[in-house]
């Protein structure tokens, strides 16, 4: 049965479509694998065997009835616990939502259901997507399948761990400052942040509204393209989703040709702070692209050095407002709502007191830190100096990208400065943790799409290679990514994940 789980998502769906296996059989295999390894990996916060098997049976019935199935029908998926889905709890990795069952499906969840994708459960994450290691989850960290003592990245660390541990071939994550690409990088996966506005945010519990974007995690570029295509498109329920045609990412992954493409290496994203092993794998990959026929040039994006600082004003500012609604009044945790000391209602705490107690007890340290940062940055008298300045930096970063894309079709960099670090190493040093996202944040600020794919190993751990493209040119990521993936697999003789320890 384990063999089923080593198939790609595309192969799995094809095998189901050909009748070589069934959606139920594949789903059972995934559930058994989760049963076997998730105690040590802890990718999942919630597993929904009954719902998953029911969905799988529905796919098999559709096949039996002769209905056409989509290219991902019957493929199991791990859903980051930041999306609402009926019938499952949504916690966002936080105590404050403990036990909350949303009454509606996120738009991407509805699209997955329509595509016949089987959601087997909710994946662990840093609380409200704030973090780079899943160590900020209120329910304990996930572990990196390459080395269980190390972080799987974050905030979509549970999603990445599930795919890297062969629990599911696909996962859905969200990326606000690198939260798909960084876990993909440190777990040896393909992860994509689509263009902002390309995928609906309706039902994605907001961390930072102007930066959040949902996207795929997979083991191959083609699988990522199929999932990307399944979730993308305009949604009338999300005013920031764009009414543009979805780029043909699946077609681009099939082209897999970089001949004549102009590839820019971002000078500011390769220097000091990047581990030598990471830089070595990155340089080899760049050389390989040149050998495949791409024109490689170096470009400068001088304002990228301010990206991290701007991000840590904009994201906390928006989160301080987005997370205000967790106030114990309508859903989730409620603390301190007892009758008063006399046992009567008269001295029961007021609403403000209950809000305060609940937020004190329900949010973790990092979430509180960011709410306080954001509240301060938006305060009267400080707004211009902090939020206003950060927005200006954002504009300048957008201009850096625009200038670079005048001479380049895509930009490239290492995804993260280092490989996966040990659990606990940076929990007491927020700034060191924040630096993990140095190379990924500029794309969130400017809105363009970006992909991370595995470039090889350093000290036995995966190194991520980042490709960035102009807004709405998501297809270029797949064209370049598929070409590089193919060349690396040929040189290596097998996919990188084959080198991961067997769990």
């Amino acid at each position, binding site marked *: 049965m384990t063999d089923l789980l080593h198939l790609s998502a595309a192969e799995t769906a094809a095998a189901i479509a050909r009748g070589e296996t069934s959606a139920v059989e594949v789903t059972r295999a995934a559930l058994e694998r989760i049963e076997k390894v998730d105690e040590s990996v802890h990718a999942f916060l919630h597993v929904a065997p009954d719902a998953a098997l029911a969905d799988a049976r529905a796919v098999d019935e559709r096949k039996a009835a002769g209905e056409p199935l989509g290219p991902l029908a019957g493929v199991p998926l791990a859903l980051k616990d930041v*999306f*609402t889905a009926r019938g499952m709890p*949504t916690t*966002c990795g936080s105590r404050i*939502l403990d036990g*909350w069952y*949303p*009454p*509606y499906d*996120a738009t991407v969840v509805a699209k997955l259901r329509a595509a016949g994708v089987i959601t087997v459960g909710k994946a662990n994450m840093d609380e409200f997507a704030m973090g780079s290691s899943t160590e900020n989850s209120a329910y304990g960290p996930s572990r990196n399948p390459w080395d269980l003592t190390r972080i799987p990245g974050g905030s979509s660390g549970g999603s990445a761990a599930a795919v890297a541990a062969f629990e599911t071939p696909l996962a859905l994550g969200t990326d606000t400052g690198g939260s798909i690409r960084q876990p993909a990088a440190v777990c040896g996966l393909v992860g994509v942040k689509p263009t902002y506005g390309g995928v609906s*945010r*309706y*039902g*994605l*519990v*907001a961390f*930072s*509204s*102007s930066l959040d974007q949902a996207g795929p995690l997979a083991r191959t570029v083609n699988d990522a393209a199929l999932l990307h295509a399944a979730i993308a498109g305009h949604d*009338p*329920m*999300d*005013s*920031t989703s764009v009414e543009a045609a979805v780029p043909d990412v699946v077609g681009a992954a099939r082209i897999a040709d970089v001949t004549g493409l102009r590839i820019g290496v971002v000078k500011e994203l390769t220097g000091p702070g990047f581990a030598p092993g990471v830089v070595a794998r990155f340089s080899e990959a760049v050389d390989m692209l040149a050998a495949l026929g791409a024109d490689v040039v170096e470009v400068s994006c001088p304002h990228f050095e301010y990206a991290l600082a701007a991000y840590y004003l904009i994201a906390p*500012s*928006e989160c*301080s*407002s987005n997370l*205000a*609604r*967790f*106030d114990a*009044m*309508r*859903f989730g945790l409620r603390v301190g709502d007892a009758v008063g000391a006399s046992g009567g*209602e*008269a001295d*029961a705490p007021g*609403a*403000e007191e209950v*809000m305060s107690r609940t937020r004190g007890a329900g949010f973790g340290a990092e979430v509180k830190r960011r709410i306080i940062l954001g*509240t301060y940055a*938006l*305060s*009267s008298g400080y*707004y211009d100096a902090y*939020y206003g300045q950060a927005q200006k930096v954002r504009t300048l970063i957008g201009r850096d990208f625009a200038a670079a894309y005048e001479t380049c079709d895509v930009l490239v960099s290492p995804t993260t400065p280092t490989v996966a670090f040990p659990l606990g190493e940076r929990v007491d040093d927020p700034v060191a943790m924040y630096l993990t996202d140095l190379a990924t944040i500029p794309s969130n600020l400017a809105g363009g799409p970006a992909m991370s794919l595995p470039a090889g190993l350093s000290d036995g751990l995966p190194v991520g290679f980042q490709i960035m493209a102009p807004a709405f040119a998501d297809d270029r990521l797949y064209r370049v990514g598929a070409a590089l993936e193919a060349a690396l697999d040929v040189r290596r003789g097998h996919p990188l994940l084959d080198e991961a320890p067997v769990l």
Partner: protein
Amino acid sequence: MTVLADLPTYDEALAVYEPVIGLETHVELGTESKMFCGCPTAFGAEPNTQVCPVCLGLPGALPVVNEAAIRYTVMIGLALNCTIVPWSRFARKNYFYPDMPKDFQISQYDEPLCVNGWLDVDVDGQTHRVGITRVHMEEDTGKSLHVGGSTGRIQGATHSLVDYNRAGIPLVEIVTEPDVRSPEVARAYVEELRELCRALGISDVRMEQGSLRCDANVSLRRRPATPDGPENPFGTRTETKNLNSLRSVERAVRYEISRQASRLSAGERIVQETRHFDEGAGVTSAGRSKEEATDYRYFPEPDLAPVALSREFVEAVRATLPESPAQRRTRLTGDYGYTLTDIANLRGAGVLDLVEQTVTAGATPEAARKWWLNELARRASDAEIPPSQLAVTPADVARVATLIAAGELTDALARKVIDGVLAGEGGPDAVIEARGLKVVSDTGALDAAADAAIAGAPAIAEKVRGGKVAAVGPLVGAVMKAMKGQADAGAVRALLLEKLGVS
């Protein structure tokens, strides 16, 4: 609450100080659905039955702007002679309150949709131009119900219930310049604004239901030392919140003028604060002071795109604007010969539209005014329904008025015709036919009845012949009785006098 005793008389206050008044008015828009979701807006539904994930602020839900609300706001802006800006944005106003589902209100801050307009207000034959600073859109909050206390206020309550049906209903806020100088003009402004919104059809503007509510900013400054001396700077203002009738607007402003004059005369300072008006006691009392006011941490709403209206759209809306109340007054005084008082009375009785329709259907303006203002307004009031719901149409009234003018009905007969129409017996002609109500102009029958009356009362006939014309009444009565009321009393009188030789 005995402060009233210390107050200088209102006239004394006005002799020394000039009131400076600005008004902020909230108008609930009469759109079918809410500002940012599809929930219905009908007033009076069971609590929490007109709600969805969006207006409940559930995690993951996103707002989408109601286009009708934008169009209505543009209508108000244009009717108030404002500039409609080509680019405006929503902003979040952040504060915690149980009836605010998201713990922020989507409003507009420094980029409102309409700016720099004016509204002319007539008081006692004088026109006052009130500058409009801005018109902006926002969403309403839910409604808290405090249970267990004696007053329905939060003090003393054991618990509170929240109804979110109102949460997300579209509001516009209309802010004036500090141009108003008297309580009478303040009241007239709100009344004129109410009539304007009603004429535009964008709100039912029911102050008692809260669909129009007003906050009054009042300050005093010393009058110039000499009549042409320089004006003094504005004093410190107070804001009296949630005035829910025209009378309250006038009374609260008047009270604040007296109260502030008393403080200033005693050498005290005015505290900048919000105040509440107690309708029963007729006094304002202190609420929140500016020192403890919330910092709302406004920032641009990242979930919504900016509102960028084309000139074409704005001009198309302008082309659909109905006649304003001011334009209507000009027309009715000109074409109908009405006085401003006539118009105010007709408007007050709720029959102005009906009168115009009656004139259009063929009645003279004077007859239409008389019938609706006297007879029909009284009938409606007896039936406790608005005049527009009477079972008599403007066309019916016009028909009756035409018959009176032609001498075919008397006023008395006409009232019987109206009785019949109201009783559902059909249109005027059908009622006249069925009830046999036409004036009898058969001179033979009248002659005979007159002769009989004279013969039946020789003493009275003699008095009249002797010159006591006023004594003819009983004879007229006898003829009318013989004719069963279906004669014109004036004609009968003339006939009798002629027969008695005194015409």
